[in-house]
């Protein structure tokens, strides 16, 4: 892995995301682009992982609860060396390991199969309990969408993580404010998220989700908490980095056409 600043890795994740979505003519750009900086900090700085040994038992793990951001995760994993970059062009194609939503049985580096919103945080809780039983020093990360907070199971898991004091669990909410049908606050407001997670017993931080320094600092602060799970509410822009996608709900699950992809890649140069 070449030495690059995190901002460059984030940009590369965004570029690869646009390219693979254009190649497959299908997929979710908006929530992939909003999560790119968080994934860059995790996979190129904070996570203790070994791409040569993807199932290393003491590794840190990430559950991509918002599984539709699979393109960004695939980009991060390929750039980190889990599999060849050329495979990204096979996204969503018949027989490809790169399914529309992540499949842990097919993709090295994917720690859990996800895609059905609301289920991932429970799985992350199970991983955190297992790590504690085995006295492993690893951290379990989870990345949720803000709209995903509308799923009741998220709050069941939230209760459990606080009850069992899962301080080895660090979760992010990709707080981009949009879901398929529009603004989260119009569709079914999950707000106020900070107060809710705090009331559920979590150590809550709120940061700029596109500032790699802030993301890294929030992770370190979270690791300093010894008796609570940590929630990092990351304020983000859906479609971040591509002018015509930013803050447009319509780019949740629509792939760019060739000329749109070209413009996006120019903006991300």
């Amino acid at each position, binding site marked *: 892995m070449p030495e690059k600043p995190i901002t460059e890795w984030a940009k590369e994740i965004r570029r690869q995301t646009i390219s693979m979505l254009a190649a497959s003519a299908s997929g979710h750009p908006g929530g992939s682009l909003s999560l790119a900086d968080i994934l860059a900090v995790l996979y190129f700085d904070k996570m203790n992982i070994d791409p040569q040994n993807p199932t290393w*038992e003491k590794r840190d793990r990430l*559950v991509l609860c918002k599984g539709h951001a699979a393109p960004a995760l695939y980009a991060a994993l390929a750039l980190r060396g889990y599999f060849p970059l050329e495979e990204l062009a096979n996204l969503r194609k018949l027989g490809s390991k790169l399914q529309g939503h992540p*499949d*842990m*049985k097919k993709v090295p580096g994917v*720690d*859990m*199969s996800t*895609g*059905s919103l609301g*289920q*991932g*945080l*429970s*799985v*992350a*809780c*199970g*991983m*955190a*309990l*297992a*790590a504690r*039983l*085995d006295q492993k020093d690893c951290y379990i990360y989870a990345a949720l969408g803000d709209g995903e907070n509308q799923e*009741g*199971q998220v709050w*069941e*898991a939230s*209760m*459990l993580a606080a*009850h*069992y004091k899962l301080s080895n669990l660090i979760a992010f909410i990709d707080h981009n404010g949009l879901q398929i049908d529009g603004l989260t606050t119009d569709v079914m407001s999950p707000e106020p998220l900070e107060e809710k997670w705090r009331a559920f017993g979590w150590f809550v931080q709120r940061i700029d989700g596109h500032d790699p320094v802030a993301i890294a600092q929030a992770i370190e602060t979270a690791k300093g908490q010894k008796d609570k799970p940590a929630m990092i509410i990351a304020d983000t822009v859906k479609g971040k980095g591509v002018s015509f996608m930013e803050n447009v709900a319509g780019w949740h699950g629509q792939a760019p056409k060739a000329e749109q992809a070209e413009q996006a890649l120019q903006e991300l140069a």
Partner: protein
Amino acid sequence: MSENKKIATREAYGKALADLGSQNQRIVVLDADLSKSTKTCDFAAAHPDRFFNIGIAEQNMIGVAAGLAVSDKIPFVSSFAVFATGRAYEQIRNSVAYPFANVKIAATHAGITVGEDGATHQALEDIALMRALPGMTVVVPADALETEQAVAALTQMYGPAYLRLGRLSTSTVNMPDYEFRLGKGVLLRPGKDIAIFACGMMVQPSLEAADLLANEGIAAAVANIHTIKPLDKDFIIDLASCCGAALTVEEHNIIGGLGSAVAETLVENKPIPMLRVGVEDVFGQSGSPAALLETYGLTPAAISQKAKRALAMKK
């Protein structure tokens, strides 16, 4: 029949799990506020560090179990069958079956013999739900001895599994030297006129029905099909072929359970007259287990009557 000591399969499950927990440190147990009823309280008492009460949150329980399983634990999760399979169905589908996570769903209080709690608590479609999931093993033990061995067998095998257990005490149908073999049908009583395939709580009344039929000169074979999936197709085809007529008996909706599994197998391989005994696509109700079994036609007398109807179709 070896003895008449009656033990509920859930009781046997609780004891077996607590014992296995001493031998295998990878076993962890999750319950959703029903540990005294599902009998996981035995494991909780013996291994408190590996028991997690999830509270009344079955969907979360399945997800947490998946996380433990992909971290090399062997989680057993328990609740009542209606909640364990129904409430958390999509969690089982997407977080357990799809990633082929090594989660064992051991659900108690299956069927109408839940009794007085009524229809909301009587799972009659759980086998159908679990059987439809790719890769899911489905086991319905008939007595305590079989339950103990099934719990051990499911611990040994890798992959998602559903173990269906009952609330009510049941007679022992297997001999003391019985050896449970996952995926293998068990011939409990030979016969040449009709093959009765039963599972779980319905094995014993099926044996009694065979006694009634014998009084009328009808030789009914009775087989225990404890593993609904993977189904012992060869065994079922062979026995049904020898008899020329078949009857299935289960404490489940006649849609989707053992009867459907056997019918699918016979229709595609050896079409012969066949009828199904089960709850006939209705919800249950409150009542004593005995009264409910009578009401829904799950008694030895009702089974033998239906067997004779199937026999009549042979002509």
